[in-house]
């Protein structure tokens, strides 16, 4: 994939980091305002971190009704690669494109720290170049990052290999230490940690590269 659309909602604030990371890896990133209704120029879509629509009501609750989400859903349905980072993950769960929900952190504190992630599945567009069991040092930066779902959903996630990343040490009370999940087909992925902030050893870690390289290595879908 060479053309990535980075969706910008009012209140997004990680779109520049996401675009910079994509460009650093040789692809082009273009911002897509949340009122857009055409994604035909793009091979892949990133929903970046931030506080879309102020996170009013619940994180992602209002963003899921932004016009762009209808075309993101169609893009995903046709097999297009969609990645939600942090707030983008929250938007994808609210939109029903990913199972479960993100709740306030256990301890009710905003967490901004490095975490160690374990790659649980390589079946997703985010981990196809990674190795199962690989440990990645990637920072988190969130207040509502505790992944929650009912027992039936959790069992289905495990059975279908949809749990993409787990925390080595659970920072926020996430069910099953989950840091990221995929949809059944593996083309839609959401994660709370920020791979776009782990692109250079000079700045702490370059472990985000394998994730974003995976995303960019996805063949362009026919859809």
């Amino acid at each position: 994939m060479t053309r990535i659309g980075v969706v910008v909602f009012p209140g997004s604030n990680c779109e520049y980091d996401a675009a910079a990371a994509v460009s650093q890896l040789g692809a082009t990133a273009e911002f897509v305002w949340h009122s857009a209704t055409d994604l035909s120029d793009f091979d892949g879509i990133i929903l970046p971190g931030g506080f879309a629509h102020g996170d009013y009501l619940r994180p992602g609750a209002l963003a899921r009704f932004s016009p762009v989400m209808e075309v993101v859903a169609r893009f995903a349905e046709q097999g297009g690669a969609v990645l939600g980072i942090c707030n983008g993950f929250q938007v994808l769960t609210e939109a029903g494109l990913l199972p479960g929900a993100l709740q306030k952190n256990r301890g009710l504190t905003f967490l901004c720290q490095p975490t160690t992630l374990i790659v649980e599945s390589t079946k997703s567009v985010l981990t196809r170049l990674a190795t199962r069991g690989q440990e990645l040092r990637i920072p988190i930066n969130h207040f509502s990052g505790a992944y929650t779902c009912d027992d039936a959903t959790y069992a289905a996630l495990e059975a279908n290999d949809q749990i993409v990343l787990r925390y080595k040490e659970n920072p926020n009370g996430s069910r099953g230490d989950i840091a990221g999940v995929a949809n059944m087909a593996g083309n839609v992925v959401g994660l709370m940690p920020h791979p776009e902030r782990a692109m250079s050893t000079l700045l702490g870690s370059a472990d985000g590269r394998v994730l974003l390289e995976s995303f960019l290595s996805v063949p362009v879908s026919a859809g």
Partner: protein
Amino acid sequence: MIYPVIVEVTLREGIADPEGATIERALPALGFTGVTNVRAGKSFRFDVDAQDEASALAQATAMAERLLSNPVIENATARSGASR
């Protein structure tokens, strides 16, 4: 007619409620020692222009399911907000 409505949103049974738990832990320090099962939630008050109260409540329930709550983790109930 205009019908005032109250929608209450709470976390579903079995979903961890860190806010409720924190409030419950704080209450004994204020001398309220007999309080258990604290659940934190949200309430919304608004007016609906509808044919009758049942239709106003039905609309409020639909709003609660689509927007005001996340059914994956929350329950919502709509009731009349008229003071009697």
